[in-house]
């Protein structure tokens, strides 16, 4: 409907000279749809700008954190290497102590995955007659042992829940080295 409308003559009192409007009247005024969308996008754009800046800064912070940790890798890896060598040597020594006393097995090598092992056949089959002997690994590269044998009654084995008084009635577990802890001594950290 156009804004100009003609109704014609109306019966009105003298105090009311204007035409009485009774028809539907929606003037098309104000911003157009494109302008409204543009304004909304502009307001959101301001927000998006700050979001982008924040994301960039968070990326830089993550970069800083990552490079901080990367810088420390050689130090920590050297320490772990020394610890690993110590524990492997100790395990090999205890294995030698155990095997020296036995008369059953004559040729063996402590914690060595490249010497032939009696009982392993070709393609990894288990040979009960123990006639075949093949090494576990054929490669020249270093292979870290997956399993290590620790004798069950050796003093190096600590029950995983050493703080338990019994299996049925448990004592209060130690919490950050409480001063009032009267139970067993912590075998790992103490002494």
């Amino acid at each position, binding site marked *: 409907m156009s804004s100009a409308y003609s109704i014609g003559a109306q019966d009105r009192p003298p105090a009311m000279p204007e035409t009485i409007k009774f028809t539907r009247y929606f003037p098309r005024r104000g911003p157009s749809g494109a302008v409204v969308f543009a304004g909304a996008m502009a307001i959101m754009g301001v927000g998006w700008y700050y979001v982008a800046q924040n994301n960039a800064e968070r990326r830089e912070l993550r970069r800083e954190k990552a490079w901080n940790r990367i810088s420390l890798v050689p130090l920590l890896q*050297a320490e772990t290497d020394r610890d690993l060598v110590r524990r492997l040597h100790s395990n090999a020594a205890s294995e030698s102590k155990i095997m020296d006393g036995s008369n059953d097995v004559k040729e063996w090598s402590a914690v060595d995955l490249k010497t032939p092992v009696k009982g392993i056949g070709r393609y990894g089959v288990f040979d009960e007659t123990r006639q075949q002997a093949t090494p576990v690994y054929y490669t020249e590269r270093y292979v870290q042992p997956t399993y290590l044998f620790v004798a069950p009654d050796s003093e190096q084995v600590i029950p995983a829940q050493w703080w338990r008084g019994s299996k049925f009635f448990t004592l209060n577990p130690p919490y950050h080295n409480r001063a009032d802890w009267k139970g067993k001594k912590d075998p790992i950290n103490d002494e």
Partner: protein
Amino acid sequence: MTTHREGIFVDGLWVDKTPLPDSIPKVSEVGLTSAPLESIGFHFAAYCKPFSEDFMLCKNSTQDPEKCLKEGRRVTRCALDLINKLKANCDEEWKKHWECLDKKNHHLWQCRTQEREFNDCVFKKLGITKTIPDTPEGQTPVHLKENPFIK
């Protein structure tokens, strides 16, 4: 990057207290906890760069821990040297920085004032700067930004 996988203990824990064999030279260990280590990460990288690079090249060539013990000892000795120098020169600022880190969940972006003082002291006394590799060109590094969004 590390070659060490944590062991899975089925029945009990294995704690081995035998020391290193005598054939291997001894070196005293770096006893730092996590917060001081975090605050000197970049300074350690700048100060001990040749030793760290030697060690990582050796590690790349082999997984055997016994082959890289010598380079590892050099890295540890360099780190101990740096720590002694920091304790002699910048002890107060370093302490403030890592104590702040301890309180702020080890977030570096929450301790920038202490970090600035620490870095200034380290640069003045020891000549080490903190650089973050791979920062895009033309951008100020995030630890030097004046008005960061995240603080």
